[in-house]
């Protein structure tokens, strides 16, 4: 499945924080300076190492946006536990340790001259931004939030129409992204998606019903992030090219997969 977004050399780097701000409750927007930006593909991720020595494992965070010429990378994340709590305290000039670029990106080449629907939910929204920036065809976003604490909305609007669903109905369609798609009768030629598992399951099913190809970005607990530990697997329909069993490594062979190929 590593047919998409070709991988370039990985490294561990000490990088500087350019700026950080809270853009919604517990949602942080972090810009860092790293040469990794040069080769980053939309849909890839990096891992950030917490400084707290009781929390050793690196935290995978999707690349939200890159400025490839200026070595700038944007990460948008939600405070979840100890690691992201620590990250949220970083300030301009702080040095942090990252591993990247990891995984394979979205198959951007498949957007050529066609309409791509970016379906995302909550903290799955960030990677869609760079995917939209890089897309070669028309983009429409269908994004779900918990409530009216929207984030990245203006950023997305620069690259396409943004259709919103909120769980509590406080903004846009009340319900989930599929509700919004049906309500607004949105169609597209290909789907890129990232978000919580129930959403991805619904997207997979929707794409199948509609006969549209869908590429979805998965999450799993990770240790190495580079394909060595086999911690982060997902069940596959066919025997996997690397593992020779019905399991594929999300970190190394994903995180983006053709929805048809993974059992979620």
């Amino acid at each position, binding site marked *: 499945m590593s047919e998409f977004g070709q991988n370039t*050399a*990985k*490294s*561990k780097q000490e990088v500087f924080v350019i700026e950080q701000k809270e853009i919604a409750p517990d949602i942080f927007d972090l810009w860092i300076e790293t040469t990794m930006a040069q080769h980053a593909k939309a849909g890839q991720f990096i891992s950030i*190492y917490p400084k707290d*020595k*009781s*929390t*050793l*494992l*690196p935290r995978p965070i999707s690349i939200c946006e890159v400025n490839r010429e200026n070595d700038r990378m944007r990460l948008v994340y939600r405070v979840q536990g100890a690691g992201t709590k620590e990250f949220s305290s970083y300030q301009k000039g702080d040095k942090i340790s990252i*591993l990247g670029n990891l995984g394979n990106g979205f198959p951007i080449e498949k957007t050529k001259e066609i309409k791509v629907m970016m379906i995302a939910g909550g903290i799955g929204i960030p990677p869609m931004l760079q995917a939209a920036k890089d897309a070669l065809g028309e983009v429409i976003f269908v994004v779900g939030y918990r409530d009216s604490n929207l984030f990245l909305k203006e950023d997305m609007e620069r690259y396409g129409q943004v259709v919103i669903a909120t769980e509590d109905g406080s903004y846009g369609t009340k319900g989930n992204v599929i509700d919004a798609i049906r309500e607004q009768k949105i169609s597209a030629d290909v789907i890129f998606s990232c978000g919580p598992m129930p959403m991805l399951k619904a997207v997979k099913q929707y794409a199948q019903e509609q006969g549209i190809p869908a590429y979805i970005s998965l999450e*799993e*607990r*990770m*240790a*190495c*992030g*580079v*394909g*060595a*530990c*086999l*911690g*982060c*697997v*997902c069940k596959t329909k066919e025997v996997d090219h*690397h*593992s*020779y*069993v*019905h*399991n594929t490594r999300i970190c*190394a062979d994903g995180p983006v997969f053709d929805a048809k190929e993974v059992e979620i």
Partner: protein
Amino acid sequence: MNTTIKIAGIEMKNPVMTASGTFGSGMEYSEFVDLNRLGGVITKGVSNVPWVGNPTPRVAETYGGMLNAIGLQNPGVDVFLERDLPFLNQFHTVSVINVCGKTVEDYVEVVERMADTSIGMLEINVSCPNVKEGAIAFGQNKEALYHITKEIKAKAKQPVIMKLSPNVTDIGEMAKAAEAAGADAVSLINTITGMKIDIHKRMFALANKTGGLSGPAIKPVAVRMVYQAAQAVKIPIIGMGGIATADDAIEFILAGASGVCVGAMNFVNPYTTIEVIDGIEAYMKKYNVADIHDLIGAVHS
């Protein structure tokens, strides 16, 4: 300055290897580390047929360590011989295969398949806490350990390292059983069985409920067991458990290890192996140690 060690006749340029299951077959980390610099690469466990492993979540973080319950997923010995071993053959380092199985026959099958290959040593994993059959069942009972060691030694063409479990009352007894059955070396420790519970979901953090604890948190237990094994047997010992720095590695060597492995810390710092190798040399220089052998078991009261 000599950092070369010999384990059961196999020479390594330095005592630093990779712990099984934390370094794949070297491919993934070869982007970070020049494998030519390593004393040896110990591969992920290999079984006679492909194994699918456990459901996810398979890993969880703990204070100063991690739990894993991979369940020995591996593509099987055929793929190992076709893909992974040729990859390792490109490098000047000793290739050590880690062997797992459900029955003695499974182990022996893999061992026999290694006969005419470039594999330098065989590490027999009888201590994985994360699979239901085989593995740890052989590693927690000294008669069973003796028996499987004996069977494997009868067929093995390469030196045999028995990998011991820390989940036992008396590690010295286990090392002795392996030695008595003809093992060429023992390696220890494998992970210590642990558990984590997500108190918000009131669920096990791992789908397998229990997992193996590794990382800096377990180092004192590992050093103690290496010391006790070194007091119990004459065969060489490969020590591991939480090695993060050269200082940690030297602690194991002073406790009696001839070789050391870096495991979970590869995930935290992919350059750990190289830093450990450089750090051991720096230590030897600082304290005028001409030969690494002068450090092995050199702790005193």
